[in-house]
């Protein structure tokens, strides 16, 4: 492999600096001892200790976590089903189905939020955690579908065929062969759905009800009033959790892949 040109190295360095500098600054300033966010008052963890007493913030974080876990699980099941249906099956109404799967990916969030809210009002459903879960499942299942679908398209079906030739029923073939093989994509889909749900402000604001405050809604209402050191601390914790989860997931994925590669070749 030939060496990279100087311009390419500069492009990479600038691009990555642009992506990471604001986050790095945010993290550094969360350890600022001064209440004035722009003046450096020495290292301190006082904003983290202040956070432990912020009951409302902790409740919001727990609510967000619960919603994200449930909606990501639902979205993973539904999204994987949709991916299987789109790649494997021919059925009437396939085209509108594909259109409905890809549309939410780019649909502006204000429209998805508004339309779901109007549905909940029309069917007289009390708004709260439950409605946010439905809304997030609808949005994130489409992302799961796209990820799983891209794995299924390049899928070698000879193992499935071998199993079925040997008399394995379709249902068992799916759980014994297909599912383990597409598992990395399913896990990636779950993680993406989880982080999208954890992150969403607009759709949650539309579909929430009295008493159901998620972390983004809480942060947003604080941020509108200006920068606060406590928010820097919340954001830093959030970033750390997500970064650790993503890196762990990618390491697990890699070692699983490597293990499987060995198992298949030997």
């Amino acid at each position: 492999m030939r060496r990279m040109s100087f311009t390419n190295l500069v492009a990479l360095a600038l691009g990555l600096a642009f992506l990471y500098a604001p986050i790095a600054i945010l993290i550094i300033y969360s350890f600022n001892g001064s209440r004035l966010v722009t003046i450096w008052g020495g290292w301190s963890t006082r904003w983290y200790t202040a956070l432990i007493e912020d009951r409302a913030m902790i409740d919001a974080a727990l609510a967000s976590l619960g919603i994200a876990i449930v909606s990501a699980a639902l979205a993973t099941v539904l999204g994987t089903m949709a991916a299987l249906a789109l790649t494997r099956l021919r059925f009437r109404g396939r085209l509108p189905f594909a259109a409905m799967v890809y549309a939410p990916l780019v649909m502006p969030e204000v429209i998805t939020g508004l339309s779901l809210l109007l549905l909940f009002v029309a069917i007289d459903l009390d708004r709260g955690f439950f409605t946010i879960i439905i809304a997030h499942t609808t949005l994130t299942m489409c992302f799961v579908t796209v990820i799983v679908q891209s794995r299924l398209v390049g899928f070698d079906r000879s193992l499935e065929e071998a199993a079925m030739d040997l008399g394995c029923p379709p249902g068992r073939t799916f759980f014994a062969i297909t599912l383990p093989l597409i598992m990395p994509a399913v896990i990636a889909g779950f993680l993406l759905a989880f982080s999208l749900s954890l992150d969403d402000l607009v759709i949650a604001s539309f579909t929430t009800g009295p008493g159901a405050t998620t972390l983004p809604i809480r942060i947003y209402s604080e941020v509108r009033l200006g920068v606060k050191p406590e928010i820097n601390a919340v954001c830093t914790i959030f970033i750390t959790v997500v970064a650790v989860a993503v890196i762990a997931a990618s390491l697990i994925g890699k070692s699983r892949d490597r293990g499987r590669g060995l198992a298949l070749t030997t």
Partner: protein
Amino acid sequence: MGRQPIHPRPGSAFSLGSKLAVAAPYLWLLGFFLVPFLIVVKISLSETAIAQPPYTPVLDVAAGWQGIRDFVAGLSFANYITIAGDDLYVFSYLKSLKVAAVSTALLLLCGLPLAYAMARAPRSVRPLLVTLVVLPFWTSFLIRVYAWINILQRDGLLNQALLWLGLIDQPTTWLATDTAVYIGLVYSYLPFMVLPLYASLEKLDETLLEAAADLGCPRWRAFFVITIPLALPGLGAGALLCFIPIVGEFVIPDLLGGSDAAMIGQTLWTEFFANKDWPVASAVAVVLVVLLVAPISVYQYLQTREIEGRPRGRPRGGRRGGP
């Protein structure tokens, strides 16, 4: 679609599992994506009422045919006439389209060199580079916008740095300007632009560039004649993946932008939450979708081709390259 199975698989046609795999997501999307949107269309044709729900007419299915007739007779286009006649809405739409177009162009300018450099990097470091570009995307959107407030505020780091460098004499206002909105948009949407571009640039056959060089084509020319045309599908997908959501963007203009000229997402939000005018908010949403139908269709076409057309062009397992 052109793929034929080697031999028919038993049970793959209409087993119970297959039926469920189609029916469950299909019904979910019908119920929570299509039907809600039809309700938006319906309410956009209703009139504002001071009631709960704040609109009339309400479809009264129990009243049978008469109910439906009353409902249809009550429909009105008044909200659309309001939108078309009021500069507030018209400017809002125009502003959104302008901001989306400009920021998509900026994203291309920033994303193309980055994606190109990633695709030309040694094969061994490419997965790491992809992870590095995607990682910020996994952290909260809201947090990333908030991080920029830290930097752009009047006594923030940008002004401090510029003052220290002697480039400016007194603090400049960055926050609550269009510049801040563009910075926020480019920052937040960069991965969406870089990844599709990278995917198509990475597939690029380098022997084509070598052939061009052998025939005496300068490198900058080969870039425009060979690389860009071959990267067009990724470029199109990336541009649409940014353009469409940016038109309806709410959080970034709300937190970083000024209060003078709102984008349409903000107008819809205000109409709904502050003015509680559901019918007008719905009409704003319907017009927005109509504006976006063309780009969304092109995007869906590219997406379908990208995902379902993949095995046709390339031998199986070819993407991974060497052994």
